[in-house]
């Protein structure tokens, strides 16, 4: 029986990892700069701009308030436009990315807020440009926090990717629903849950270790 579940599990795990990793990479590439933008345009910050800050902030809040399962269905036209199809594992990446960008943005913003204002002031007193302040002060100083926050985002992505089954995305969640629930195979359900637990534990462990190593405070 185990031999029968194993290929199913490994295929589903592969799909989950694929969705999470690709979504995470794309979402970080956009979300981290978004977080920087949210922080630096806020009042009293180096690129203070209330209009940009509030506009971007509202969009971020709006996207974050849509439940993932609804977002996934609501953006089907966009998904079809971007990847050519609205179903499948790759198609699931589009809503995952869109849901994660504002999440990462807020998380990064929170970490950047923790950087003492005095450090920015010191860099300004040495003639640093805003870009230098971002790249050499804000991001390095906030890095341990950002790593911890991104770990949280990855774990949230594992959870959200479980809903990808709704649009034929596959993955561990899909496996658990289709085999474990709909086909009354509790052992598949159990195995999936165990794999998910191990996966999340592993991600958290790696994230914690990395954050700790980066933290020199």
């Amino acid at each position: 029986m185990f031999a029968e579940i194993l290929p199913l599990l490994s295929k589903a795990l592969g799909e989950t990892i694929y969705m999470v990793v690709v979504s995470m990479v794309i979402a970080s590439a956009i979300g981290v700069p978004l977080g920087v933008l949210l922080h630096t345009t806020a009042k009293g910050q180096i690129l203070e701009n209330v209009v940009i800050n509030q506009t971007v902030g509202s969009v971020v809040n709006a996207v974050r308030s849509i439940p993932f399962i609804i977002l996934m269905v609501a953006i089907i036209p966009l998904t079809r436009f971007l990847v050519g199809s609205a179903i499948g594992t790759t198609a699931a990446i589009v809503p995952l990315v869109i849901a994660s960008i504002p999440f990462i943005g807020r998380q990064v913003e929170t970490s950047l807020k923790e950087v003492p204002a005095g450090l920015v002031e010191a860099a300004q007193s040495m003639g640093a440009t805003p870009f230098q302040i971002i790249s050499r002060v804000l991001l390095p100083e906030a890095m341990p926090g950002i790593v911890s926050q991104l770990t949280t985002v990855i774990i949230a992505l594992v959870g959200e990717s479980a809903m990808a089954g709704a649009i034929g995305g596959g993955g561990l969640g899909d496996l658990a629903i289709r085999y474990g629930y709909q086909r009354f195979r509790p052992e598949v359900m159990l195995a999936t849950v165990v794999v998910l637990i191990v996966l999340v534990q592993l991600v958290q462990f790696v994230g914690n270790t990395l954050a700790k190593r980066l933290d020199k405070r």
Partner: protein
Amino acid sequence: MIKLIGIEKTYDSPSGKVHALKGIDLNIARGEIYGIIGLSGAGKSTLVRCINMLERPTAGKVIVDGQDMTTLTESQLREARKSIGMIFQHFNLLSSATVYDNIAFPLKLYGMNANDIGKKVRPLLELVGLSDKAQQYPSQLSGGQKQRVGIARALASDPKILLCDEATSALDPQTTKSILDLIKVINQNLSLTVVVITHEMQVIKQLCDKVAVISEGVIAERGSVLDVFTNPRHDITKEFISVLLSNELPAAFRGNEISQDRTPGSLLLLRLIFLGERADDPVLAKMIRTCKGVECTMLFGNLDEIHGVPFGRFIIGLSGDDSAINSALNFLGGQDVRVEVIGYVRRNSAAVE
């Protein structure tokens, strides 16, 4: 070197406009250590930030080394800031960078290559006595060591001016002294102009050549440290000085009524201030010899030094008949000593027994 002309700064706060600086004029000469002392909220931190434009004054001019800082563009300003180093109360070091990298930080900003950075950073590490800590992180250092890193970092760009914003306020007295000594050495060896912001008169006394006392956004008093110390005019200055130099009467007289008229059993208390070489003249011995019939009791004495100039403060009590006391006052008036008549005060009876 630094010329502030009519500096004003107003902030908008929820409770209306706050007038932090109300027309400050200040001249700081090249190579000078200029202290600015004030209570928290007096505007001193805002003032020092106007020098490197971390705060833009609402009105007025800031001339640094002949250049009007208020008219510079952002990029010109960044360039100008390279010749103004700054150290902070909370050090503001990068926690994610080693001591070496913290000192190298401004040089990396300017795009200097690693080799040249090394040539620059190593002597600075030596200057501040942290060569063995180069690869440690700030969290592994004591407060004094962190400030030394801050100083080395501020000096890395070969500035002409060093701004010290409450640089020793977070340090214990011994560490404060060693940091002040270091600043003094730097001032002399690199002929750096130093601006010191503090709320501690001790720092002014130990380090500065000149001082401006700032209160409620205006300069209440200014001058050489020696003048301000020995002859404070403004109440706020007297208050600052009283922390170091107590103005209280000796315990045996404290709390008793001070009268300008003679009362039975009282002594005429005088505060004498000796300055410079006169501080060790035998003025009192001469007075006793010259003015027959006057009794002199030493009640309080303190000899100090400001910038190597001896500075003595004494409280003496005189008794004797009126003519003897008057002749003593006349005698002292003719000497090179400042005399302040406190008045006739009775000794506490408890203290006598």
